[in-house]
């Protein structure tokens, strides 16, 4: 019979993930006071879903919660209109941190123990990737801001870029079976 892990091992990242998601959803809703009420709906659902997903070790639920907060942000951005929102890279980084904390909580709730030294290395890589992601996002936003028009050519190029990125990542992420 497998031993049940101590709750303290997974409760801390679970709480941190839910709190970060609540803070993010709250900030997005508060920024647009006019539609704060309707905006808060997907945010609240996302936070509740995330809490349930972490408690039940339902990893797909974490992804859905992140997408819901992203949806809240997308609605707010589209509704606001105007220039590019400079806070978007930080929101993206925040969403990544929420997802990572949620997954760490799920992994720590597994019966076999995670090893601390390994987790430290993992968090260092996550921090570096997040910083890189923020930098990339800032560059992308700057390029978008300086682009005069958004026509069919840009749309086609964007679609091609999306397909390429997702296709490449999917190919790299495929399951591989080799004889060891």
């Amino acid at each position: 019979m497998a031993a049940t892990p101590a709750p303290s091992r997974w409760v801390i990242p679970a709480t941190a993930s839910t709190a970060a998601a609540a803070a993010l959803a709250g900030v997005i809703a508060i920024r647009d006071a006019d539609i704060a009420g309707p905006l808060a709906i997907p945010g609240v659902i996302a936070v509740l879903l995330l809490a349930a997903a972490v408690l039940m070790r339902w990893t797909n639920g974490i992804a859905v919660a992140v997408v819901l907060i992203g949806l809240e942000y997308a609605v707010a951005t589209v509704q606001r209109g105007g220039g590019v929102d400079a806070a978007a890279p930080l929101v993206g980084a925040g969403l990544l941190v929420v997802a990572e904390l949620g997954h760490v909580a799920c992994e720590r709730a597994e019966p076999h123990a995670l090893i601390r030294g390994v987790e430290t290395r993992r968090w260092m890589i996550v921090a570096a990737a997040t910083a890189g992601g923020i930098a990339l996002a800032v560059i992308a936003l700057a390029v978008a801001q300086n682009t005069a028009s958004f026509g069919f050519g840009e749309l086609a190029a964007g679609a091609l870029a999306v397909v390429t990125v997702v296709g490449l990542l999917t190919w790299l992420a495929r399951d591989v079976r080799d004889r060891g």
Partner: protein
Amino acid sequence: MTRTAAPRLTSYLAIAALFLLGGLATGRPELVALATPFIALLVVGLILARSPRPIEIGMKLTPDSVVEGEPLELTVDLTTSPGIRALELAVPAVRGLDFASGEPMLAVTLDDRVPRHVSIQLRAVHWGVHALGKMRTRTYDALHLFRFDGEADTGMVVRVYPRAETMRTLLRPRRTLALTGNRVARHKGDGIEFADLRPYGPGDRVRSINWRASARRGQLWVNERHPERNVDVVLFLDTFADAESDAGSVLDETIRGGAGLAAAWLGARDRVGLVSFGGILEWLEAGSGVRHAYRIVDALLRTRVVFSYAWKDIDVIPSRLLPPGALIVALSPMLDDRVIAALLDLRARGFDLVVVEIAPEPFLPPTRSETESLARRLWKLQREALRYRYARAGAPVVTWTTGTPLEVVMTEVEAWRRHQHLRAG
């Protein structure tokens, strides 16, 4: 090694794709900015995720044969390729072995190039020959985006011997054989045990003269003695039917009882044979000595209940397995008509038969209704009638329930025989 993507990887891919498509659909670059941290993490993770080289696993099990209840230690030596910091090690679950620590899966931290020794404490809980099977390993990449599963065949076999019942006194057989043993024969001859006195006759040895008795009677009297002989014992195991629960099974008790009886009789220099009468007929001819004791234990370890509809009677047993005058000790739950008929047939052929009934009642589920209780009572009455039928045939049936020493049960047989002897006059 098998590389499998973690659910997180597909989740992040989906999130990034959705945000990118959302950005395209709405024409808002902010949504692309939401996707970039996820894409950056995936790119870094995929670059770092290289399939590790196979992990070298050396295993040693000490000891490789134990008695039920005894501990075992499985030592695993792990040598991994650089980069693997942690490893999950899953020891295969084997029915007869239990994890003393209660953890079939272990997390092990590793240092590059330095072999790591992991000690796993096991406990033998059930008799049998247990193959340890395949040990599974699982490692992760730095970001836990992939897991790498490997298997290593342990190729190890553990022999768990049944915890034998201790027997200090043995059942006295009706007849002994011509070979020398530890059993005092009923007839008179050369031996140690005093039997009787009789007048001196031609051919009697001088050393047999009882001088004290001769002086008292005024003529020569000699001592008569009982010779020490051995016996042939055939353990007759019923493997047609079984009854089992979480507490154990009838077969477990049969094997434990058989092992105890065989050890006790072999220890007394008797010859012991084994007949496993069931769906598959297995046997071991009567023999004695240490080597034969191991043969019997190995035969017991192979014993299984094999379900069969085919009718079998005593004729299927080769006659050489049942030497004339042998004491046949049957260990049976008395649940199968074929065994019941075969044992009565043996008794009818003049064999000295003792039936140790392994009580199946402790392994039966409790009755849930009045009808079931009534049926159970009727069934018990039928069994009682069956015991009476055996007793009428001259074969005692003693019931051995879990927890009762087998020696006590065998004492009941002696008492039954004494009673029958007195009744016969």
